[in-house]
């Protein structure tokens, strides 16, 4: 059963088609990876699913209902949470307050939201920074804060946009571990990732975008040997990243 179904999704920017006729679905309780070279249209896909951008055409269904045309806050309320590739902490608030705002979507009372936010920070290893202004965090910490904010909204679908990039291996491992645990608890995850080791280790399905188009969808082992992917993407990547 799919939680998210995207059909013929297209998004044009002036003179450029960032996402072209993309269709895929994300099974409930799965971890799906969205990969592709820089500028492939991955983040744009997230923006469309999360409601930050409106599709030029195509449909998006979450839990059986269309989300096209809904503002981001309502999509969030329905159970979709996203992180930003370029982190966007609420700089003037403390770390705890950042996460509390997110928790307030579900917990209407401030004290309950505080308890929930503290639990999320605990889980991600950010608890000792709870009272620090978000502006004071290091980049890895900011990435963790992105995840914490998203998690605090108690999503059914979590969209992670390159959260491992720039993290130290121990931190990346921690997030990987948390994602696994969350999936075990029933959360569905769609993640954009360049770190192939991570993708191979945790994804059930991998979708490959190239120039806005979906060129492949398979399980990790199959993707790794798909000639088109190897040619247009992995090859490039191996060359570039060594």
């Amino acid at each position: 059963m799919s939680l998210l179904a995207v059909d013929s999704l297209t998004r044009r920017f002036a003179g450029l088609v960032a996402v072209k006729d993309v269709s895929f679905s994300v099974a409930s309780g799965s971890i799906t990876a969205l990969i592709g070279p820089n500028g492939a249209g991955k983040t744009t896909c997230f923006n469309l699913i999360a409601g930050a951008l409106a599709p030029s055409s195509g449909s998006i269904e979450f839990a059986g209902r269309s989300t096209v045309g809904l503002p981001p806050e309502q999509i969030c309320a329905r159970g979709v949470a996203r992180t930003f590739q370029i982190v966007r902490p609420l700089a003037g608030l403390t770390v705890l307050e950042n996460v509390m705002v997110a928790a307030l979507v579900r917990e209407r009372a401030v004290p309950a939201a505080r308890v929930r936010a503290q639990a999320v920070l605990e889980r991600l290893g950010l608890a000792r920074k709870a009272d620090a202004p978000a502006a004071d965090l290091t980049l890895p910490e900011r990435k963790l804060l992105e995840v914490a904010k998203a998690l605090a909204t108690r999503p059914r679908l979590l969209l992670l946009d390159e959260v491992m990039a720039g993290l130290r291996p121990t931190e990346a491992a921690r997030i990987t571990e948390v994602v696994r645990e969350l999936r075990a608890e029933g959360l569905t995850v769609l993640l954009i990732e360049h770190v192939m080791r991570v993708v191979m280790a945790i994804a059930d399905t991998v979708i490959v975008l190239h120039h806005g188009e979906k060129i492949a969808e398979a399980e990790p082992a199959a993707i790794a040997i798909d000639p088109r992917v190897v040619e247009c993407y992995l090859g490039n990547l191996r060359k570039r990243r060594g």
Partner: protein
Amino acid sequence: MKRAHAAAAAFLAVLALVPAAADDFQLSVLALIFLFAYIGIAWNLMMGYAGQLSLGHALYIGVGAYTVAILAERYGVTPWLGMPVAFALCAALAALTGALGFRFAVRGVYFALLTIAFAEFTRIVFEHWEFVGKTGGFFLRALGPDNRPWSSLRGDATFFYYALLCTLALGWALSAALVSSRIGYEWRAIREDEDAARAIGVRAFRMKVLAASISGGLTGIAGGWFALLGGSLFPETVLGMRMSIDVIIAPIVGGLGSLSGPILGAFIVVPLNELSRDLAQHFNINGLNFLIYGALLMMIVLFAPHGLWPPIARLLRLHRWK
């Protein structure tokens, strides 16, 4: 809790006793301080918390003032009722202004321009509207010997001192409750990054309209006090740009984004204004006051660009509770 309440009670008791030791002029100046602190708090809900700059708050001062005055003078409606009407009317007006701006995603400076436009538009309407006396103004009758201040809400300096102290206390309490509630968190999230806030479920449009509306409504009540204090209203004075600027100086000097900032700001700005006027009079140089006042404000802005409250809070190690 108990200690805080005791301290608050002690502080209020001190303020309640001030009239025994102060003369009418000092009480009037203190009353003005309370009034400007109150407006500063109201304006700051929108600017300092929800991050929406309004340069047209004169709109609510003016509409509130005319509402209370016209209801009292023409229809014999007690200001006790006039004030809530002013609140409702201004809240509705502010919601409308906000909704129009926010609906069309008018942000930042452009939103500020929109607020100026609404205020100026209203001023011009009032200047040509027979019902409110056009540019000729609107006046309250003199108080009779049988006036009961707490029923007419008009009286001597001591009355206004207490009345505005109560207004400030209530406005502060309401704002404190708001900003420590869910609403306050969501406002600050919008202020920091509206798109990021929406991504975590903050209903930005609704919250911004709410901020504008509460801010406008509270300011409308301040307008009512302007009418009751001065007894004469002119579109140019209560609805003009100068009023819009005058009411935001205190919160800017005190510091945005806190409830203490506007209060501290008013305690500095209003007396500074009086003091510089005294100096100008003492040296018998007309206009010297503007020079002194302007120079002092410039110094404050130079040395404390985020207002005076944050450095003071840091000094007292209150930085966690900006």
